[in-house]
């Protein structure tokens, strides 16, 4: 039967990890040198630690990529619209079943900033339309 190894029976070897020759002679001077050295101020000592720098860099990359994506989609929409001729739009509006209220909604949507009411739009349309005297007579 193999003899069981017991820790207390082993010879303690404190020199298993030996330092390079002459290391301890030079260490005190090395430490003194570092102590006497004027402190170099690292960039992150001004509140710009590597951790924060990484977070800021990631945010900046996200911002650039996101911005570029948004800009490119906007551009492509404008490009598609610019390629459609006025004639084609007119034909589409005449042929397709476009409801008046849809057009009204679109108009309201596009003039949202101008804060025009539906009533004001109708008034504008009436004023802009050339009315025939015969039509007025017919109405009256």
């Amino acid at each position, binding site marked *: 039967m*193999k003899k*069981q*190894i*017991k*820790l207390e029976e*082993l*010879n*303690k*070897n*404190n020199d*298993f*990890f030996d*330092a*390079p020759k002459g*290391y*301890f002679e030079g*260490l*005190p001077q*090395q*430490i*003194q040198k*570092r*102590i006497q050295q004027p402190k170099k101020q690292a960039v992150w000592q001004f509140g710009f630690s590597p951790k924060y720098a990484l977070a800021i860099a990631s945010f900046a990359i996200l911002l650039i990529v996101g911005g570029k994506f948004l800009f490119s989609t906007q551009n492509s929409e404008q490009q598609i619209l610019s390629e459609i001729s006025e004639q084609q739009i007119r034909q589409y509006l005449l042929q397709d079943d476009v409801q008046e209220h849809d057009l009204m909604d679109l108009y309201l949507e596009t003039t949202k900033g101008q804060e025009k009411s539906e009533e004001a739009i109708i008034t504008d349309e009436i004023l802009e339309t050339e009315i025939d005297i015969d039509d007025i007579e017919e109405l009256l």
Partner: protein
Amino acid sequence: MVQLQNQSVPKQASGALSQKRSVKTNLEELDDKELIARFKEADTRNYAFNLLVRKYQERIYHHVRKMVIDHDDTDDLTQEIFIKAWKGLENFREESQLFTWLYRIASNECITFLEKKKRRFFLPIHDVKKELLGKLNSITSNKSMHVTGEEIELKLQKAILQLPDKQRLVFNMKYFDDITYEQMSEVLGTSVGALKASYHHAVKKIEESLNQE
């Protein structure tokens, strides 16, 4: 030394030399309390600190080396530990012994270093252990392992590496440095009972590992 005594030294110079030598001898023989007192005086500060480093450098080096294995890492940490001691010694209140205070700084530095290593490479614990084991193997490959005692020593070091970092600290301090549980309690801020239990379990695990093959 004998040669120096036999040389004819001018009387004045001889007096200065003997005075200088006696100051040096006295400082070298200073105990920790006196060392600290000298450190707190501006005139003897550098010299006292130099003596302190000389007195404790080997113990601190080996304490750190057993934890981080690699010599370059140990060198960095040892320097860092003594620089921290330089900064903190002014306010050292002598409630604990100087060497337990130094061991405390050293142990904290080791644990912080190993934790940082784990975090930096997003590695789970066993990978850092693997890295340390690799370093241990490279050290031993440079040594001649013909002596049976050294082979057992290598097996022992490998078994110690399998322990959790804090338990390794406890084991190393008790087994290699013969530090008492009371002193260890000062170093690690853990109760004597918990330290005894930790050491007992460490011994059991290591013996199991040594007897496995």
